[in-house]
Protein backbone atom coordinates (compact mmCIF):
# COMPACT_ATOMS: atom_id res chain seq x y z
CA UNK A 1 0.00 0.00 0.00
CA UNK A 2 1.53 3.27 -1.09
CA UNK A 3 0.14 5.12 1.91
CA UNK A 4 2.03 2.92 4.32
CA UNK A 5 5.19 3.12 2.23
CA UNK A 6 5.29 6.87 1.66
CA UNK A 7 4.06 8.29 4.93
CA UNK A 8 7.03 7.53 7.18
CA UNK A 9 9.26 9.21 4.59
CA UNK A 10 6.89 12.15 4.31
CA UNK A 11 6.76 12.54 8.06
CA UNK A 12 10.54 12.61 8.33
CA UNK A 13 10.73 15.17 5.52
CA UNK A 14 8.14 17.50 7.02
CA UNK A 15 9.69 17.30 10.48
CA UNK A 16 13.21 17.79 9.18
CA UNK A 17 12.23 20.84 7.15
CA UNK A 18 10.11 22.34 9.91
CA UNK A 19 12.78 21.96 12.57
CA UNK A 20 15.54 23.12 10.22
CA UNK A 21 14.07 26.59 10.10
CA UNK A 22 15.18 28.21 13.35
CA UNK A 23 13.03 30.11 15.80
CA UNK A 24 9.68 29.51 17.45
CA UNK A 25 6.72 29.10 15.09
CA UNK A 26 4.90 32.22 16.33
CA UNK A 27 2.64 33.37 19.13
CA UNK A 28 -0.90 32.53 18.09
CA UNK A 29 -2.52 29.89 20.27
CA UNK A 30 -2.15 26.19 19.57
CA UNK A 31 -4.03 24.88 16.52
CA UNK A 32 -5.37 28.33 15.59
CA UNK A 33 -3.64 28.10 12.20
CA UNK A 34 -5.82 25.14 11.30
CA UNK A 35 -4.24 22.52 9.06
CA UNK A 36 -3.47 22.61 5.33
CA UNK A 37 -6.20 21.87 2.79
CA UNK A 38 -5.65 19.83 -0.37
CA UNK A 39 -5.40 23.20 -2.13
CA UNK A 40 -2.65 24.44 0.15
CA UNK A 41 -4.31 27.11 2.25
CA UNK A 42 -5.06 27.10 5.98
CA UNK A 43 -8.30 25.29 6.70
CA UNK A 44 -9.50 21.80 7.25
CA UNK A 45 -8.89 19.08 4.68
CA UNK A 46 -11.24 20.16 1.89
CA UNK A 47 -12.47 23.59 2.96
CA UNK A 48 -10.49 26.83 3.47
CA UNK A 49 -10.97 28.66 6.76
CA UNK A 50 -10.57 32.39 7.43
CA UNK A 51 -7.51 31.58 9.56
CA UNK A 52 -4.10 32.25 8.09
CA UNK A 53 -1.52 29.46 8.13
CA UNK A 54 0.93 28.75 10.92
CA UNK A 55 1.25 30.78 14.09
CA UNK A 56 2.55 34.22 13.10
CA UNK A 57 0.91 37.02 15.06
CA UNK A 58 1.01 40.74 14.22
CA UNK A 59 4.78 41.19 14.74
CA UNK A 60 5.88 37.86 13.25
CA UNK A 61 6.53 35.78 10.14
CA UNK A 62 5.71 32.13 9.83
CA UNK A 63 4.54 29.39 7.53
CA UNK A 64 3.90 25.74 6.95
CA UNK A 65 4.94 22.76 4.89
CA UNK A 66 2.39 20.06 4.21
CA UNK A 67 2.03 16.66 2.60
CA UNK A 68 -1.39 15.08 2.16
CA UNK A 69 -2.89 12.01 0.56
CA UNK A 70 -6.40 10.70 0.08
CA UNK A 71 -6.80 7.11 -1.05
CA UNK A 72 -10.31 6.56 -2.39
CA UNK A 73 -11.73 3.56 -4.24
CA UNK A 74 -10.29 4.18 -7.72
CA UNK A 75 -7.96 7.16 -7.28
CA UNK A 76 -5.25 8.61 -5.08
CA UNK A 77 -5.30 12.35 -4.50
CA UNK A 78 -2.02 13.85 -3.33
CA UNK A 79 -0.87 17.32 -2.35
CA UNK A 80 2.43 18.91 -1.36
CA UNK A 81 2.76 22.57 -0.61
CA UNK A 82 4.24 25.46 1.30
CA UNK A 83 2.77 28.63 2.81
CA UNK A 84 4.15 31.79 4.34
CA UNK A 85 2.23 34.07 6.66
CA UNK A 86 3.18 37.74 7.05
CA UNK A 87 2.03 39.22 10.35
CA UNK A 88 -1.22 37.25 10.37
CA UNK A 89 -2.36 39.61 7.62
CA UNK A 90 -1.39 37.88 4.38
CA UNK A 91 -0.87 34.22 3.55
CA UNK A 92 0.80 33.13 0.32
CA UNK A 93 0.80 29.50 -0.76
CA UNK A 94 2.11 27.30 -3.53
CA UNK A 95 1.61 23.61 -4.08
CA UNK A 96 1.06 20.76 -6.45
CA UNK A 97 -1.96 18.49 -6.50
CA UNK A 98 -2.01 15.15 -8.28
CA UNK A 99 -4.73 12.64 -8.95
CA UNK A 100 -3.35 9.20 -9.65
CA UNK A 101 -5.78 7.70 -12.16
CA UNK A 102 -5.22 4.08 -11.11
CA UNK A 103 -7.04 1.61 -13.33
CA UNK A 104 -8.60 4.40 -15.39
CA UNK A 105 -5.08 5.55 -16.32
CA UNK A 106 -4.44 2.53 -18.53
CA UNK A 107 -7.59 3.26 -20.53
CA UNK A 108 -6.73 6.92 -20.92
CA UNK A 109 -3.04 6.38 -21.61
CA UNK A 110 -2.10 8.77 -18.80
CA UNK A 111 -1.07 7.93 -15.24
CA UNK A 112 -2.14 11.08 -13.48
CA UNK A 113 -3.80 14.46 -13.60
CA UNK A 114 -1.88 17.28 -11.96
CA UNK A 115 -2.17 20.98 -11.29
CA UNK A 116 -0.15 23.71 -9.64
CA UNK A 117 -2.02 25.95 -7.21
CA UNK A 118 -0.86 29.42 -6.19
CA UNK A 119 -2.85 31.03 -3.42
CA UNK A 120 -3.16 34.30 -1.55
CA UNK A 121 -5.39 34.97 1.43
CA UNK A 122 -5.73 38.27 3.25
CA UNK A 123 -7.28 38.73 6.65
CA UNK A 124 -9.75 41.55 6.14
CA UNK A 125 -11.04 42.01 9.65
CA UNK A 126 -11.52 40.48 13.04
CA UNK A 127 -9.96 37.70 15.02
CA UNK A 128 -11.14 34.11 15.18
CA UNK A 129 -10.87 33.96 18.98
CA UNK A 130 -11.56 37.51 20.11
CA UNK A 131 -13.58 39.20 17.38
CA UNK A 132 -17.27 39.61 18.15
CA UNK A 133 -18.01 38.68 14.55
CA UNK A 134 -15.09 36.30 14.20
CA UNK A 135 -12.44 36.61 11.51
CA UNK A 136 -13.02 37.36 7.82
CA UNK A 137 -10.62 36.69 4.98
CA UNK A 138 -10.62 37.00 1.22
CA UNK A 139 -8.65 34.51 -0.85
CA UNK A 140 -7.60 33.64 -4.38
CA UNK A 141 -6.47 30.29 -5.77
CA UNK A 142 -4.89 30.35 -9.20
CA UNK A 143 -4.71 26.85 -10.64
CA UNK A 144 -2.87 25.60 -13.72
CA UNK A 145 -3.24 22.12 -15.19
CA UNK A 146 0.05 20.39 -15.95
CA UNK A 147 -1.52 18.00 -18.47
CA UNK A 148 -4.58 19.19 -20.37
CA UNK A 149 -5.15 16.22 -22.71
CA UNK A 150 -7.62 14.37 -20.48
CA UNK A 151 -9.47 17.47 -19.19
CA UNK A 152 -9.79 18.72 -22.76
CA UNK A 153 -11.03 15.34 -24.00
CA UNK A 154 -13.84 15.30 -21.41
CA UNK A 155 -15.01 18.79 -22.36
CA UNK A 156 -13.09 21.24 -20.17
CA UNK A 157 -12.72 24.70 -21.74
CA UNK A 158 -9.57 26.03 -20.10
CA UNK A 159 -6.39 24.67 -18.58
CA UNK A 160 -6.17 27.36 -15.91
CA UNK A 161 -8.60 29.16 -13.66
CA UNK A 162 -8.84 31.29 -10.56
CA UNK A 163 -11.16 30.72 -7.61
CA UNK A 164 -12.05 33.63 -5.35
CA UNK A 165 -13.46 33.02 -1.90
CA UNK A 166 -14.66 34.82 1.20
CA UNK A 167 -14.32 32.94 4.51
CA UNK A 168 -15.58 33.63 7.99
CA UNK A 169 -14.37 31.71 11.05
CA UNK A 170 -15.27 32.04 14.68
CA UNK A 171 -14.35 30.09 17.77
CA UNK A 172 -17.00 29.86 20.46
CA UNK A 173 -15.37 29.31 23.86
CA UNK A 174 -16.90 26.61 26.06
CA UNK A 175 -19.76 26.21 23.59
CA UNK A 176 -20.50 22.50 23.73
CA UNK A 177 -19.88 20.45 26.89
CA UNK A 178 -17.52 23.31 27.84
CA UNK A 179 -15.42 22.56 24.75
CA UNK A 180 -14.43 25.23 22.22
CA UNK A 181 -16.24 25.09 18.89
CA UNK A 182 -14.86 26.46 15.63
CA UNK A 183 -17.36 27.30 12.89
CA UNK A 184 -16.29 28.17 9.34
CA UNK A 185 -18.24 29.31 6.32
CA UNK A 186 -16.79 29.90 2.87
CA UNK A 187 -18.41 31.25 -0.29
CA UNK A 188 -16.37 30.48 -3.38
CA UNK A 189 -16.67 31.69 -6.94
CA UNK A 190 -15.30 28.92 -9.14
CA UNK A 191 -15.53 27.24 -12.52
CA UNK A 192 -13.14 24.41 -11.62
CA UNK A 193 -14.05 20.83 -12.49
CA UNK A 194 -13.15 18.47 -9.62
CA UNK A 195 -11.32 21.34 -7.97
CA UNK A 196 -9.53 22.05 -11.26
CA UNK A 197 -8.00 18.60 -11.85
CA UNK A 198 -10.40 18.22 -14.79
CA UNK A 199 -9.82 21.74 -16.04
CA UNK A 200 -12.01 24.83 -15.87
CA UNK A 201 -15.44 25.43 -17.35
CA UNK A 202 -17.16 22.94 -19.59
CA UNK A 203 -19.88 22.31 -22.10
CA UNK A 204 -22.58 23.01 -19.47
CA UNK A 205 -21.16 26.24 -18.08
CA UNK A 206 -18.09 28.35 -18.58
CA UNK A 207 -18.81 31.01 -15.98
CA UNK A 208 -17.84 31.32 -12.32
CA UNK A 209 -20.57 30.00 -10.03
CA UNK A 210 -21.08 30.60 -6.32
CA UNK A 211 -20.47 27.56 -4.14
CA UNK A 212 -20.89 27.24 -0.37
CA UNK A 213 -18.55 25.37 1.92
CA UNK A 214 -18.79 24.81 5.64
CA UNK A 215 -16.98 23.10 8.43
CA UNK A 216 -17.37 22.72 12.16
CA UNK A 217 -14.65 21.52 14.51
CA UNK A 218 -14.77 20.77 18.20
CA UNK A 219 -11.61 21.06 20.32
CA UNK A 220 -11.51 18.14 22.79
CA UNK A 221 -8.55 19.99 24.29
CA UNK A 222 -5.75 22.05 22.79
CA UNK A 223 -4.14 19.01 21.15
CA UNK A 224 -7.13 17.27 19.59
CA UNK A 225 -9.94 18.51 17.40
CA UNK A 226 -12.58 16.65 15.41
CA UNK A 227 -15.01 17.92 12.86
CA UNK A 228 -16.98 17.66 9.66
CA UNK A 229 -16.69 19.46 6.35
CA UNK A 230 -18.94 19.98 3.38
CA UNK A 231 -17.97 21.48 0.04
CA UNK A 232 -20.44 22.25 -2.73
CA UNK A 233 -19.05 21.88 -6.27
CA UNK A 234 -20.12 22.97 -9.73
CA UNK A 235 -21.16 20.47 -12.41
CA UNK A 236 -19.84 21.85 -15.70
CA UNK A 237 -19.10 18.68 -17.65
CA UNK A 238 -21.90 16.62 -19.18
CA UNK A 239 -19.70 13.52 -19.58
CA UNK A 240 -19.99 12.68 -15.88
CA UNK A 241 -21.87 14.13 -12.95
CA UNK A 242 -19.81 15.90 -10.33
CA UNK A 243 -20.74 15.51 -6.64
CA UNK A 244 -20.20 17.63 -3.54
CA UNK A 245 -17.41 16.62 -1.15
CA UNK A 246 -17.69 15.65 2.51
CA UNK A 247 -15.32 14.56 5.22
CA UNK A 248 -15.12 13.68 8.90
CA UNK A 249 -11.74 14.53 10.40
CA UNK A 250 -9.61 14.31 13.50
CA UNK A 251 -6.51 16.46 13.92
CA UNK A 252 -3.74 16.02 16.45
CA UNK A 253 -1.59 19.03 17.25
CA UNK A 254 1.05 17.87 19.76
CA UNK A 255 2.72 21.28 19.62
CA UNK A 256 2.96 24.22 17.25
CA UNK A 257 5.51 22.52 15.00
CA UNK A 258 3.42 19.55 13.94
CA UNK A 259 -0.16 18.72 13.00
CA UNK A 260 -1.42 15.33 11.85
CA UNK A 261 -4.87 15.05 10.29
CA UNK A 262 -6.80 11.88 9.51
CA UNK A 263 -10.18 11.81 7.82
CA UNK A 264 -12.83 9.75 6.13
CA UNK A 265 -13.46 11.51 2.82
CA UNK A 266 -16.33 11.13 0.41
CA UNK A 267 -15.45 12.63 -2.97
CA UNK A 268 -18.56 11.29 -4.69
CA UNK A 269 -18.31 10.38 -8.36
CA UNK A 270 -15.12 11.26 -10.25
CA UNK A 271 -14.92 10.93 -14.04
CA UNK A 272 -17.87 8.55 -14.12
CA UNK A 273 -16.60 6.28 -11.34
CA UNK A 274 -19.16 6.58 -8.52
CA UNK A 275 -18.83 6.72 -4.73
CA UNK A 276 -15.17 7.55 -4.27
CA UNK A 277 -14.63 7.16 -0.55
CA UNK A 278 -11.60 6.47 1.52
CA UNK A 279 -9.02 7.64 3.99
CA UNK A 280 -7.18 10.94 4.07
CA UNK A 281 -3.96 11.62 5.93
CA UNK A 282 -2.09 14.91 6.15
CA UNK A 283 1.07 16.09 7.86
CA UNK A 284 1.89 19.71 8.49
CA UNK A 285 5.04 21.24 9.88
CA UNK A 286 5.03 24.89 10.99
CA UNK A 287 7.95 27.27 11.18
Amino acid at each position, binding site marked *: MTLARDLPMAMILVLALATHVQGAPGSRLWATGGVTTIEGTAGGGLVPWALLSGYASDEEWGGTLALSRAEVDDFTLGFAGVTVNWRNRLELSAGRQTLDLGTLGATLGQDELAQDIFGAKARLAGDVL*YGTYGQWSLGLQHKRNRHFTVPSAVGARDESGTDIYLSGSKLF*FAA*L*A*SRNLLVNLTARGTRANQGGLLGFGGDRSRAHELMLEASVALFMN*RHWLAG*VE*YRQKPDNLSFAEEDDWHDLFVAWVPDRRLAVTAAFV*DLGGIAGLPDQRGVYLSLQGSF
Partner: protein
Amino acid sequence: MTFIRLISGCFLAVLLTACQTPVTGEAGAERDANLYDALGQRAGIEAIVEDLMYLIVDDTRIAFQFRGLDVNRFHSRLSDQICGLAGGPCRYTGRSMAESHQAMAITETQFNALVENLVLALERNGISTAAQNQLLAQLAPMHGDIVAP
Protein backbone atom coordinates in the same frame (compact mmCIF):
# COMPACT_ATOMS: atom_id res chain seq x y z
CA MET B 1 -20.52 3.65 3.20
CA THR B 2 -23.44 6.07 3.30
CA PHE B 3 -22.93 5.99 7.06
CA ILE B 4 -20.26 8.68 6.67
CA ARG B 5 -22.80 11.06 5.18
CA LEU B 6 -25.36 10.10 7.81
CA ILE B 7 -22.95 10.59 10.71
CA SER B 8 -21.68 13.86 9.22
CA GLY B 9 -25.23 15.15 8.94
CA CYS B 10 -26.16 14.21 12.49
CA PHE B 11 -22.93 15.59 13.92
CA LEU B 12 -23.39 18.88 12.09
CA ALA B 13 -27.00 19.17 13.23
CA VAL B 14 -26.03 18.57 16.87
CA LEU B 15 -23.20 21.10 16.72
CA LEU B 16 -25.27 23.79 15.05
CA THR B 17 -28.06 23.38 17.59
CA ALA B 18 -25.55 23.70 20.42
CA CYS B 19 -24.22 26.86 18.79
CA GLN B 20 -27.56 28.52 19.00
CA THR B 21 -28.18 27.65 22.64
CA PRO B 22 -27.59 30.78 24.73
CA VAL B 23 -25.17 30.30 27.61
CA THR B 24 -26.40 33.22 29.70
CA GLY B 25 -29.06 33.51 32.38
CA GLU B 26 -29.43 31.13 35.28
CA ALA B 27 -27.43 28.36 33.69
CA GLY B 28 -24.60 30.88 33.25
CA ALA B 29 -24.63 31.92 36.90
CA GLU B 30 -24.58 28.31 38.03
CA ARG B 31 -21.70 27.58 35.69
CA ASP B 32 -19.76 30.51 37.12
CA ALA B 33 -20.11 29.31 40.70
CA ASN B 34 -18.85 25.93 39.56
CA LEU B 35 -15.97 27.64 37.81
CA TYR B 36 -14.83 29.26 41.06
CA ASP B 37 -14.69 25.81 42.65
CA ALA B 38 -13.07 24.26 39.58
CA LEU B 39 -10.25 26.82 39.81
CA GLY B 40 -9.64 25.81 43.44
CA GLN B 41 -11.37 28.84 44.96
CA ARG B 42 -9.32 31.80 46.17
CA ALA B 43 -6.23 29.74 47.11
CA GLY B 44 -6.23 27.90 43.80
CA ILE B 45 -6.59 31.14 41.84
CA GLU B 46 -3.71 32.72 43.76
CA ALA B 47 -1.49 29.75 42.92
CA ILE B 48 -2.45 30.02 39.23
CA VAL B 49 -1.70 33.76 39.16
CA GLU B 50 1.65 33.16 40.86
CA ASP B 51 2.61 30.57 38.22
CA LEU B 52 1.42 32.95 35.51
CA MET B 53 3.74 35.67 36.87
CA TYR B 54 6.74 33.32 36.85
CA LEU B 55 5.96 32.41 33.22
CA ILE B 56 5.64 36.11 32.26
CA VAL B 57 9.02 36.99 33.78
CA ASP B 58 10.67 34.28 31.65
CA ASP B 59 8.88 35.28 28.44
CA THR B 60 10.95 37.77 26.41
CA ARG B 61 7.87 38.68 24.34
CA ILE B 62 6.14 40.33 27.28
CA ALA B 63 8.40 40.49 30.36
CA PHE B 64 9.37 44.11 29.57
CA GLN B 65 5.72 45.21 29.80
CA PHE B 66 5.64 44.13 33.45
CA ARG B 67 8.93 45.70 34.56
CA GLY B 68 8.67 48.06 37.54
CA LEU B 69 5.27 46.67 38.49
CA ASP B 70 4.31 46.30 42.16
CA VAL B 71 4.35 42.50 42.14
CA ASN B 72 2.23 41.96 45.26
CA ARG B 73 -0.40 44.44 44.21
CA PHE B 74 -0.58 42.97 40.68
CA HIS B 75 -0.95 39.47 42.15
CA SER B 76 -3.80 40.40 44.45
CA ARG B 77 -5.62 42.56 41.86
CA LEU B 78 -5.46 39.86 39.16
CA SER B 79 -6.50 37.19 41.67
CA ASP B 80 -9.47 39.34 42.69
CA GLN B 81 -10.42 39.85 39.09
CA ILE B 82 -10.30 36.15 38.12
CA CYS B 83 -12.06 35.20 41.36
CA GLY B 84 -14.87 37.67 40.58
CA LEU B 85 -15.17 36.59 36.95
CA ALA B 86 -15.35 32.96 38.06
CA GLY B 87 -18.34 33.72 40.30
CA GLY B 88 -16.36 33.81 43.53
CA PRO B 89 -16.82 36.23 46.47
CA CYS B 90 -14.28 38.81 45.30
CA ARG B 91 -14.48 42.16 43.59
CA TYR B 92 -11.90 43.71 41.30
CA THR B 93 -11.26 47.26 42.53
CA GLY B 94 -8.51 48.35 40.14
CA ARG B 95 -8.71 50.61 37.12
CA SER B 96 -10.68 49.55 34.04
CA MET B 97 -8.96 47.30 31.54
CA ALA B 98 -8.95 50.07 28.94
CA GLU B 99 -7.45 52.60 31.37
CA SER B 100 -4.75 50.34 32.81
CA HIS B 101 -3.51 49.15 29.37
CA GLN B 102 -3.91 52.39 27.43
CA ALA B 103 -0.29 53.58 27.50
CA MET B 104 1.25 50.13 26.99
CA ALA B 105 0.77 49.83 23.21
CA ILE B 106 -0.04 46.13 23.57
CA THR B 107 0.21 44.13 20.35
CA GLU B 108 -1.69 41.00 19.31
CA THR B 109 1.57 39.07 19.73
CA GLN B 110 1.87 40.21 23.36
CA PHE B 111 -1.81 39.49 24.06
CA ASN B 112 -1.46 35.99 22.59
CA ALA B 113 1.70 35.41 24.63
CA LEU B 114 -0.16 36.30 27.84
CA VAL B 115 -3.08 33.99 27.03
CA GLU B 116 -0.61 31.20 26.24
CA ASN B 117 1.07 31.68 29.63
CA LEU B 118 -2.30 31.74 31.38
CA VAL B 119 -3.27 28.43 29.76
CA LEU B 120 0.08 26.93 30.76
CA ALA B 121 -0.40 28.19 34.35
CA LEU B 122 -3.89 26.64 34.42
CA GLU B 123 -2.47 23.35 33.15
CA ARG B 124 0.31 23.38 35.76
CA ASN B 125 -2.36 23.63 38.41
CA GLY B 126 -4.33 20.72 37.01
CA ILE B 127 -7.33 22.80 35.92
CA SER B 128 -9.68 20.86 33.62
CA THR B 129 -10.09 21.77 29.95
CA ALA B 130 -13.73 22.64 30.66
CA ALA B 131 -12.84 25.12 33.41
CA GLN B 132 -10.02 26.59 31.29
CA ASN B 133 -12.43 27.22 28.44
CA GLN B 134 -15.05 28.75 30.76
CA LEU B 135 -12.48 31.15 32.17
CA LEU B 136 -11.24 32.07 28.67
CA ALA B 137 -14.84 32.74 27.66
CA GLN B 138 -15.02 35.31 30.50
CA LEU B 139 -11.69 36.91 29.62
CA ALA B 140 -11.93 36.94 25.82
CA PRO B 141 -14.26 39.99 25.59
CA MET B 142 -11.51 42.11 27.26
CA HIS B 143 -9.31 41.75 24.18
CA GLY B 144 -10.67 44.93 22.64
CA ASP B 145 -9.85 47.01 25.74
CA ILE B 146 -6.35 45.58 26.17
CA VAL B 147 -4.83 45.46 22.67
CA ALA B 148 -3.91 48.85 21.22
CA PRO B 149 -6.08 49.81 18.23
